[in-house]
């Protein structure tokens, strides 16, 4: 019996089916993938080394670039680690503003995600809607922080400024709009039979496999594993907020997308809880930071993690008593999702699902390379 001829195909780095500057070489036998090798490294910028040359206060200006669609989680992860190291207690209003920003950032990242996955299976309207609606969130970020994408706002010690007058009302109005839009998204996308037939049963992941490969975030919760840093290691205002961990069972592409759709609804609810609370609080006191130019932190080490839109994003910070970190290491979710898990899970899938699987795992190449 003769052996079947296999062909090597290159996906990326210039390919619409890749989530960024990232590449995959897949070996296909007919329509089926028999081997895959990811080629990262196009975006290596050496963040961990660059941090050693900076003051404690200069970190957020750099590390928000680790994950472009979701920069606030990077800033807050670093800030949480530094606060634990320095023993700083963020004022209550500051904690709530931080949580508000994180949930808004999660919403904007999920809107990108919906469009990304839908685009990979040919439903391009969802992407246009997602990016359009995301812009309204960016408008609010601009009002709060003064920037649209890289906010550089969550410093060790608390958020930079208090909310502008009337901001809570604008946020609530946007949440009403997004809730209405979610119903439109349901009709167009989540209840679309084309999507359901393509996604259901594709690349399923078991809970045991997720635990073995250190899968975190919505990808882990889609397998039925109730893991969430907001509950397990609370930070910002999450200990005071009322929410449950949402899970799915199947762990396939469909479960991963629906998991994020359900969390989108949950984030809207969390934001409403936060704005209700912010209205009742006295304004003004949001941040505690010593003189940034002469700020020294006692020797020691600390780890701070946040639940980003992609999974657990943690920062391990070491101080030798100087004006900046002696060593900083980031633990991003995409390195396990995009490298180890993806390479194994894509084997046996059809060529048409190579891009769909990458989008469903929500891989962020800048986070892999760093």
């Amino acid at each position, binding site marked *: 019996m003769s052996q079947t001829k296999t062909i090597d195909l290159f996906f990326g780095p210039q390919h619409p089916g890749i989530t960024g500057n990232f590449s995959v070489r897949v070996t296909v036998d007919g329509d089926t993938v028999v081997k895959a090798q990811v080629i990262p490294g196009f975006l290596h910028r050496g963040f961990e080394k660059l941090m050693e040359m*900076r*003051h404690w*206060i*200069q970190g*957020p*200006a*750099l590390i928000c670039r680790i994950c472009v669609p979701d920069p606030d989680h990077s800033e807050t992860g670093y800030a949480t680690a530094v606060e634990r190291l320095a023993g700083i207690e963020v004022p209550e209003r500051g904690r709530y503003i931080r949580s508000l920003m994180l949930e808004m950032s999660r919403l904007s990242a999920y809107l990108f995600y919906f469009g990304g996955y839908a685009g990979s299976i040919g*439903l391009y*309207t969802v992407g246009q809607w997602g990016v*359009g609606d995301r*812009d309204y969130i960016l*408008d609010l970020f*601009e*009002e*709060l*922080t*003064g*920037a649209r994408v*890289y906010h*550089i706002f969550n410093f060790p010690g608390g958020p*930079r*400024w208090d909310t*502008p007058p009337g901001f809570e009302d604008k946020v609530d109005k946007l949440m009403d709009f997004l809730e209405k839009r979610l*119903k*439109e998204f*349901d*009709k*167009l*996308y*989540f*209840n*679309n*039979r*084309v*999507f*359901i*037939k393509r996604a259901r049963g594709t690349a399923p992941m078991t809970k045991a496999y997720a635990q073995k490969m250190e899968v975190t975030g919505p990808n882990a919760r889609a397998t039925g594993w109730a893991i969430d840093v907001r509950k397990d290691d609370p930070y910002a205002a999450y200990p005071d907020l009322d929410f449950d961990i949402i899970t799915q069972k199947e762990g396939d592409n469909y479960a991963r997308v*629906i998991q994020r*759709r*359900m969390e989108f609804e949950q984030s809207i609810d969390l934001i409403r809880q936060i704005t209700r609370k912010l209205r009742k609080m006295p304004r003004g006191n949001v941040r505690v930071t010593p003189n*940034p*130019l002469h700020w020294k932190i006692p020797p020691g080490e600390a780890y701070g993690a946040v639940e980003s839109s992609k999974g657990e994003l943690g920062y391990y910070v070491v101080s030798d008593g100087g004006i900046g970190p002696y060593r900083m290491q980031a633990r991003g979710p995409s390195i396990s999702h995009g490298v180890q898990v993806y390479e194994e899970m894509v084997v046996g899938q059809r060529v048409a699902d190579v891009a769909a699987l990458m989008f469903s795992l929500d891989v962020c190449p800048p986070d892999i390379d760093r």
Partner: protein
Amino acid sequence: MSVKKEGSYVSPFRALKQLVKKPHTVQIPKVVKPPAERYRGFHTNNLEVCIGCGNCSRVCPDNAIKMVPFPEYARKEPGSMPLRPQVDYGRCCFCALCVEVCPTGSLQMVRTFTHVDEKKDSFVFIPDSKVVHETPDFVLDTKNLRRK
């Protein structure tokens, strides 16, 4: 939960009703969308009030600020230096840490953020009291988008 298990081939066609609605985009430059109040754009510096301490230069995470000599501002007050900040907008990330550490409050940021020029040296300048291009700070400088 409004997500159905089986889905429908018909429901996506309801999106067609969006065709009769107004677009969400604005037509630049016919319609100008002003940046937010807190928008971080170019710097301004009141050179008379500035004492040339160099805090802005030290806190800048991108090494975008260089202190350049200004002998005409040599004063005898303690802490005052005959230096003024020069900003390289090829490096600046608009984080506004420099504005935050300015002890006199002379260094500020305005909402103007557009500057187009074919000479790269024009992106390095000493901010003064004037806003770049002397345009009001909330209008997009569309005139400068055209090549001279």
